[in-house]
């Protein structure tokens, strides 16, 4: 079977250029960049990531309108695009969909943010290129910069004040004739982070915080990657092995039901990681080949990902479950094999046809005494065709279709302890049955980009889909993290989404304006519905499907006053409504409030800058149980950077101070918002880079 997968193909656009443009996302070629995709997209380079350096890659990217970071603690966060996250967006590293335990809301991405050269955020359905999951958008991460010198490198040192984090990242690379290599090494260590409160209330527990420290949220991370490549006149190949490892504590009082019985002295050290904690290791082996001839090109990818995630916590009894023998609460081992192959043919200088096929096999096994998702295997494959026609430099259109087939096999799971049935006889309860499902999906997309004068107008309409994940089909257990019982529904249909995206841009000499409205309709959004029944004292949540309408926009204005001063204003707004089902009239969970960001930037000398910005968020009163309304807030933030030359070495310095006024506020999309944890106070990050 694996041979079939490996034989499958698909095309994909791979990129080895590095964006070294200015920090702003609008380069000189912004018109061409806008014309390139008919969906709303934003591309940022490494400089942008460094200038906006925050605790996590997603926090750094959340300055882009329409992108949100769903944080857990200070060292991990998950991406969301226009409020959709988890399995509703695709994260792709060098074209390969990153496969971890995306369903989980309590951990982050397993990607080394210092290895990133360029990121393309597609804010709209990306099903055509990525298949299932890309409903909300695609976060395309590229790490494949092609070295030019025989030997070059960079060392980055960084630290943050709030969680006392310190880290080092090294990149070494070189090229000799047709061969090149690249090595990345990154290590980070951070302590428990601080929030502006001395007490929080979790469920009905009152938890005092010593010095405002969120106990046991410390963590560490170690990443390594090695690439070996060949560049010929027509043929290029790169082979990459990368590994990301992270271990972090869970907030001690918000994990597990009976934390109160713990004898652990959590306040002894801010740097230690006690139970409960999680660890994850993500290994990727990826080979990419590219060939181009006259009027055509071919691309092929093969990748293996091995994601191993563990949650350990003190063994405690709950309900009829006796005290477990060890601290391994959950263990997930997921292997993903991906094969892609595709080609581009230029029928004429104005018409290009792109075809591709891809296949993916996933194998997931669980262990530990806590059950939340069953063992499963999925096999999926898709084929697509896209045609792009350029009428003139000012007008292009594209259209594409895609077909996918997905096969999911879920294994039954039976409790390791007995529960009395109705007659009082102890039985080993079956939590999940054997489920076999086949899903078919046909998706399409069409768009146009037109650039009359200073305008760039774009429109794209498309259908995308998402196959229900095994958790949605077969979950049946206690989610200790959120204190609820989650029940899957084996009959769920593939989620479908229709979306209209519009881009209205005006590019002046000193002023650029951008408005990206969208309109999105889900006939059958998969929603975890909080019900009114209990299971052993835990509220029962069930996966259901409902019609959902989403609409909103992002807006941005950049005004270059003089060669030194630049003003920028940007914002986002999202409206989401469930139009049918048990929660008709309600919004969706974790719906981000409106946000606006106004900044003034002063540039000096060649590459120095100081930027002051005010970030404002509206109140969020649109909630679903069990959320709480969140008040509006604003923060004042400062960033500055300057490069210096020391002989042959370029020294880059960057400083970022968040929440300068030390204001206490809650972020509606933060995971710990549910348990009433505010955001960090004043927080300074310092970055020092040495390029040689």
């Amino acid at each position, binding site marked *: 079977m694996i041979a079939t997968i490996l034989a499958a193909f698909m095309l994909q656009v791979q990129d080895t250029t590095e964006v070294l443009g200015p920090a702003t996302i609008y380069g000189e070629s912004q018109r061409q960049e806008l014309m390139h995709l008919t969906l709303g997209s934003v591309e940022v380079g490494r400089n942008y990531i460094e200038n906006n350096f925050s605790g996590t890659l997603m926090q750094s990217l959340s300055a882009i309108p329409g992108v949100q970071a769903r944080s857990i603690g200070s060292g991990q966060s998950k991406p969301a695009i226009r409020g959709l996250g988890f399995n509703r967006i695709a994260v792709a590293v060098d074209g390969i969909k990153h496969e971890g335990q995306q369903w989980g809301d309590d951990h982050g991405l397993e990607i080394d943010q210092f290895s990133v050269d360029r990121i393309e955020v597609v804010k709209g359905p990306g099903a055509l290129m990525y298949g299932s999951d890309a409903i909300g958008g695609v976060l395309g991460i590229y790490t494949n910069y092609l070295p030019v010198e025989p030997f070059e490198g960079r060392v980055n040192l960084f630290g943050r004040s709030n969680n006392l984090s310190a880290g080092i990242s090294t990149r070494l690379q070189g090229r000799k004739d047709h061969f090149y290599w690249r090595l990345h090494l990154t290590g980070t260590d951070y302590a428990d982070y601080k929030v502006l409160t001395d007490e929080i209330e979790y469920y009905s527990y009152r938890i005092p915080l010593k010095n405002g420290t969120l106990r046991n949220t410390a963590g560490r991370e170690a990443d390594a990657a090695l690439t070996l490549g060949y560049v010929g006149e027509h043929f290029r190949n790169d082979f990459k092995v990368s590994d990301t490892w992270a271990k972090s504590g869970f907030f001690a009082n918000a994990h597990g039901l009976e934390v109160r019985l713990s004898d652990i002295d959590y306040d002894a050290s801010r740097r230690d990681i006690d139970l409960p904690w999680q660890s994850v290791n993500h290994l990727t082996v990826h080979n990419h080949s590219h060939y181009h001839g006259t009027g055509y090109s071919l691309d092929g990818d093969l990748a293996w990902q091995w994601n191993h995630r563990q949650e350990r916590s003190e063994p405690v009894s709950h309900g009829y479950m006796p005290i477990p023998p060890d601290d391994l609460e959950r263990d997930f081992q997921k292997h993903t094999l991906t094969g892609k192959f595709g080609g581009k043919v230029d029928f004429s200088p104005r018409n290009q046809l792109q075809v591709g096929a891809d296949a993916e096999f996933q194998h997931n096994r669980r262990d530990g005494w806590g059950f939340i998702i069953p063992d499963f295997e999925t096999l999926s494959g898709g084929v697509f065709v896209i045609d792009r026609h350029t009428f003139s430099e000012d007008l292009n259109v594209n259209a594409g279709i895609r077909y996918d087939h997905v096969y999911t096999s879920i294994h039954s799971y039976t409790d390791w302890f007995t529960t009395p049935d109705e007659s009082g006889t102890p039985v080993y309860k079956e939590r999940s049955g054997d489920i076999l499902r086949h899903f078919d999906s046909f998706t399409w997309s069409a768009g146009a980009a037109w650039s009359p004068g200073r305008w760039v107008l774009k429109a794209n309409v498309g259908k995308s889909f998402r196959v229900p994940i095994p958790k949605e089909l077969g979950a049946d257990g206690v989610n200790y993290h959120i204190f609820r019982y989650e029940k899957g529904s084996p009959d769920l249909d593939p989620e479908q989404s229709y979306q209209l995206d519009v881009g209205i841009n005006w590019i002046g000499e000193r002023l650029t304006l951008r408005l990206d409205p969208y309109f999105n309709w889900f006939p059958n959004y998969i929603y975890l519905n909080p*019900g*009114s029944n209990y299971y052993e004292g835990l509220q029962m949540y069930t996966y259901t499907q409902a019609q959902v309408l989403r609409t909103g926009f992002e807006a941005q204005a950049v005004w270059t006053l003089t060669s030194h001063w630049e003003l920028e204003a940007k914002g986002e707004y999202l409206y989401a409504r469930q139009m049918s089902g048990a929660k008709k009239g309600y919004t969706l969970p974790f719906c981000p409030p409106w946000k606006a960001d106004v900044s003034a930037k002063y540039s000096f000398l060649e590459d120095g800058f100081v930027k002051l910005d005010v970030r404002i968020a509206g109140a969020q009163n649109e909630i679903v149980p069990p959320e709480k309304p969140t008040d509006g807030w604003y923060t004042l933030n400062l960033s500055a950077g300057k490069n210096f030359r020391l002989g042959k070495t370029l020294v880059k310095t960057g400083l970022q101070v968040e929440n300068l006024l030390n204001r206490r506020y809650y972020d509606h999309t933060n995971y710990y918002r549910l348990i009433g944890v505010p955001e960090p106070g004043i927080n300074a990050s310092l970055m020092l880079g040495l390029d040689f």
Partner: protein
Amino acid sequence: MKTNIIIPAAALAAFTLLLVCCGKTKEKDMTPPEIIAVGDYTSPLNCQEFHVGSVLPFAWAFSDNDELGSFNIEIHSNHDHHTHSTEAEECPEEDGHDHGEPVNPWVFNKDYAIPAGTAFYEADIKIPIPEDIDPGEYHFMIRVTDASGWQQLRSVAIHIQ
């Protein structure tokens, strides 16, 4: 030429605005249910004492602006004096009481249905206290949902002798 561009752009913006402002649907329930005392009969009350082998009467009422869902009663040991926040501060401790490791702590956890369409419900349940459990401090947790999935909690500290 210019109007040709502005008109569709404006129409689209207006369309979006229309959807945003005027998608009024039926009034949704944003109010969690309440757990309320029933006068002199209310039981258990904070710091109330009970005896092993006797009966613990549960008499509290639930109300909701719309419709109640179901409720749950859970009793667990509070030998380590952890704090719950919905009730008054900790009850006065008795002298010479041993707070060592529990040997056979009482665990009670039961879900109860409330008839559909009910907005006010008075619960009246007799819970027998087993003979062989550890005496000491216990937490009596009351949880109730409404039909929309909102939940309310109340925690009462009790003493079992």
